[in-house]
Structures are given as structure tokens and as C-alpha cells.
């Protein structure tokens, strides 16, 4: 049977690529070290398949069809479409059709209704963390796009439940795969709003602290605070998926730094899986 061998979270943001040379050296080092540490842990866990949970930044979907959650069931997915991501070393990336479809089927059996896609474009939300982790060997990647950029979005509670559902699906998949989950995005930031550039450091620290406590309290705290902490902060939903997969326990902060040059409160975390 497959097993969940890791859960991780990392921020992303276009300016981590586009403005990298203008990031102060000490912040470059901290961000680089944090990404690489996550990469080291993924490599140490000998991950066969990485489930990457990220928002779609208008790369796959438009107002014609905005799925709350879309699971990649393709054998192959495309690399990032953004022109400024041209240097990313993978134009195509292997998925895992069997596991992806098993997640869809398990979800439907359990009363969840995801959409699914046989070919997705994995934009910077997935690919910046993968790139910066400097993995010597890229695992197969099953992308899951969770809407956190266009209202209405899935509830925070549902995102947490999705984590538990993913774990159930992984652990009932017959092939002996080592699977990890990576939630990308957050923490506080604001994109295309009047507050663009604002980072709510106190809110981020409190969010991080509450990942170590009761999931219900964390969800209530986020539900109250997210609407005034920038639209990018909504991406913490993807961290909640990882948290749910870990059973709401075992959160470990790798690093957090507010990075004004990339306009993101950059967080990096992993979960101990029991």
C-alpha cells in the first residue's frame, strides 16, 4: 500500500524569481536555505510522488469555469506557462495517473466532489518551490489546484477536511508508493489590491503559533483574520490541506521571514507524520 511520508508547506511569489537579484543577500540566503531544507527533507523521505496543492493563478482556468478544487490525473503535466519562468528546467513533468484518479474516486465515495484534469499547466505556485528546493531528482507530481484567488472559495474547514481525505486516499492506494504533500502559497501578502506590498507579520506569527494548537481554533482565527490581511493570505488554505493530512499535529516551522522585495510573508514548514 502507499503511505504518506511527509507534509510540507512553502510560500511562492513571482518576485522570488523576477526580483531575486534585488533581494537583500541575508534574505536571499534565508529563503534559499529554507527551500533547500524542504528539498533535503523530501529527498530524505525518498518521495515517489509529491502531491502539490496550490492555487491556479489564471493559468488553467478562467471565469468560464472556476473549480473549487481540481485534481491532476494525467500521466504528464506541463511546466509553467509564465514567460518569466522560462528558465525553470522542466517543460513537462510526470504525474501519476493511477494515484490521481484514485484520489478522485475516493473523494467521490466520501462525499467530496472535485473536478479533475488529464493535463494541467503547473504555474509558478507549484514550480517556484520545486525549483528553489534544488531537488536532484524530481518526484512525480500530482497537482491539485485549490481555488484561493477568486471568491467564493472553499471554506477553511473544507480545506482541512481535504487533507484528511487525501491521506485516506493515499493509504488505500494499492501500489507501494511513498507520497508527500506540499501546500504552497501564503503567508500574508496582497496582490493587485490597494494594499499591495503589505505584509502582516504579527498575523503571520500568530498563524504559525496556532498551527501548533487546536485545528478548530486555527480555522476560527484564520476565518476572522484573513479577509483583512491581503488576498494572497487566502493561500494558507493549502497549508491547511497539509495540516489536515498530518491529522492536525506535528507542525514544525522551518523558517519565516517577511520579505518586502518579494512582497510576501515567506513561510516554510513541515509536519511530522505519525
Amino acid at each position, binding site marked *: 500500500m502507499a503511505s504518506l511520508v511527509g507534509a510540507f508547506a512553502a510560500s511562492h511569489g513571482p518576485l522570488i524569481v523576477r526580483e531575486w537579484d534585488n533581494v537583500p543577500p541575508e534574505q536571499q540566503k534565508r529563503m534559499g536555505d529554507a527551500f533547500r531544507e524542504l528539498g533535503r527533507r523530501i529527498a530524505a523521505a525518498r518521495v515517489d510522488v509529491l502531491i502539490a496543492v496550490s492555487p491556479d493563478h489564471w493559468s488553467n482556468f478562467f471565469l468560464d469555469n472556476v473549480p473549487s478544487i481540481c485534481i491532476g490525473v494525467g500521466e504528464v503535466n506541463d511546466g509553467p506557462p509564465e514567460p518569466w519562468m522560462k528558465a525553470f528546467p522542466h517543460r513537462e513533468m510526470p504525474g501519476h495517473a493511477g494515484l490521481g484518479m484514485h484520489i478522485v474516486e475516493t473523494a467521490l465515495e466520501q462525499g467530496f466532489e472535485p473536478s479533475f484534469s488529464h493535463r494541467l499547466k503547473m504555474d509558478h505556485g507549484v514550480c517556484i518551490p520545486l525549483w528553489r528546493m534544488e531537488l536532484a531528482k524530481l518526484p512525480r507530481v500530482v497537482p491539485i489546484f485549490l481555488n484561493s484567488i477568486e471568491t467564493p472559495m472553499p471554506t477553511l474547514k473544507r480545506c482541512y477536511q481535504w487533507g484528511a481525505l487525501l491521506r485516506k486516499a493515499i493509504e488505500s492506494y494499492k501500489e507501494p508508493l511513498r507520497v508527500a504533500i506540499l501546500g504552497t502559497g501564503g503567508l500574508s501578502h496582497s496582490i493587485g489590491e*490597494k494594499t499591495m506590498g503589505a505584509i502582516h507579520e504579527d498575523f503571520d506569527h500568530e498563524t504559525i503559533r496556532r498551527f501548533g494548537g487546536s485545528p478548530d481554533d486555527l480555522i476560527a482565527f484564520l476565518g476572522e483574520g484573513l479577509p483583512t490581511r491581503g*488576498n494572497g493570505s487566502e493561500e494558507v488554505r493549502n497549508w491547511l490541506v497539509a495540516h489536515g493530512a498530518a491529522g492536525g499535529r506535528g507542525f514544525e516551522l522551518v523558517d519565516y521571514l517577511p520579505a518586502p522585495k518579494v512582497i510576501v510573508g515567506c513561510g516554510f514548514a513541515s509536519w511530522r507524520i505519525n
Partner: protein
Amino acid sequence: MRDYWLSKLFFDLQQPTLAAEFRANPESVMSRYKLDHRVKRAIAEHDAPFLAERTNAYLLRYYFFAVGMKDDEFVRRLNG
């Protein structure tokens, strides 16, 4: 509120070839979209607050990036 065609224009301008065409001849590109005359004027005048009420914030930022506006100027206009 979402203006579908305004949003579609901004979505499509993520394609570099279309963005280049738009920068060279915005009227020609805009003619392919069902845009209200007030929306066309707001685009021409870089009226960010007017546009922000009608599209997703990410798409709005992509648009101003596509036309070459620096983030500082974009935020200044948004708050104008």
C-alpha cells in the same frame, strides 16, 4: 462585480504575443472584445480603481505588468 470581457482581455494578455500586439495597437486588440466604452476609456487612461471594481485583482496586476507599468506606479494609481 466581474466584467467578463474585460477580465477575458486581461486573461488573454498573459500571452506574450498578444501583449506585444496590445502595446503596439491597443484599439485593434480591444475591438475583439465586447468592451463598454467606459471600460475602454478606463484602459486607455490607466484608471486602475475603475478597472479594479470590475475584475479580479490578480488579473488586474497581470494587465499592468503586461503593459510595462512598475508596481509602485500601479499601487499609486490604485490608491489614486
